[in-house]
């Protein structure tokens, strides 16, 4: 069920922008509306776009499920170890020890509206990134599995 040449090329052109926008939503999770889950879902729609445009077998050759499983495991491990790292700094599990320490992601923020500075919110950007990667891998795997029915219709 391959689309015409035009659709396939525009999909290829649009796919990187879709990923970049999703990554933007993930990275700016603590400043603008969005975060790990929403950004990951946007990135997963990029994969859906490719599956719709190209034939299912071409897509599974380029986006393999084992790579996605590893991606998902990395995201989950990032989240779990960010939580466990709280314990190393005498904070309980999931403690945000990086906030307001002045170092990486640590600049303190005063109360009230401000233009927003990326280098804030301690552990939150890392957790956002971890969840974003996990949702990207997870949703893409679900898409690939559930759309595996496409190639079956082609045979008869």
């Amino acid at each position, binding site marked *: 069920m391959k689309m015409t040449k035009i659709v396939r090329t525009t999909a290829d052109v649009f796919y990187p922008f879709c990923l970049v926008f999703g990554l933007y939503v993930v990275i700016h*999770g*603590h*400043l*603008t*509306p*969005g*975060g*790990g*889950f929403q950004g990951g879902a946007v990135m997963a729609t990029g994969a859906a776009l490719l599956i719709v445009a190209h034939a299912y077998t071409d897509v599974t050759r380029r986006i393999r499920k084992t790579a996605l499983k590893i991606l*998902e495991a990395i*995201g*989950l491990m990032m*989240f*779990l170890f960010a*939580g466990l790292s709280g314990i190393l700094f005498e904070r309980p*599990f*999931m403690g*945000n020890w990086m*906030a*307001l320490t002045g170092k990486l*992601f*640590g*600049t*303190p*923020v*005063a*109360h*009230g509206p*401000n233009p*927003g500075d990326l280098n*804030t*919110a*301690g*552990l*939150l950007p890392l*957790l*956002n990134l971890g*969840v974003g990667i*996990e*949702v990207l891998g*997870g949703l893409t*795997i*679900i898409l690939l*599995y*559930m759309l*595996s029915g496409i190639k079956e219709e082609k045979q008869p």
Partner: protein
Amino acid sequence: MMKIALYATILLVLFGGLTYIVADLPFGAPPVSDMDDYFIRNGQEQTGANNIVTSIVFDFRGFDTLGEATVLFTAVLGVGMMFRKMKEGEEYEND
């Protein structure tokens, strides 16, 4: 036909009840909002994030989000489990 009439009446009764119940809830002016005001007041100082919802999701109630990522991981495993290649004779024909 009788079954549909029965279900329709149940739905209508439910409609009346739910509307009456929901009418009690004030809209637009939550009666108590001390916890949320605390988050809005101290969210930025304590977590350093401008987006208070994200500071709640990942810092104040971060443990829920760990549970949530686990739910998504369970769903992915569940879908993968349903489409796995089964070995010969693995399924038990229910007699």
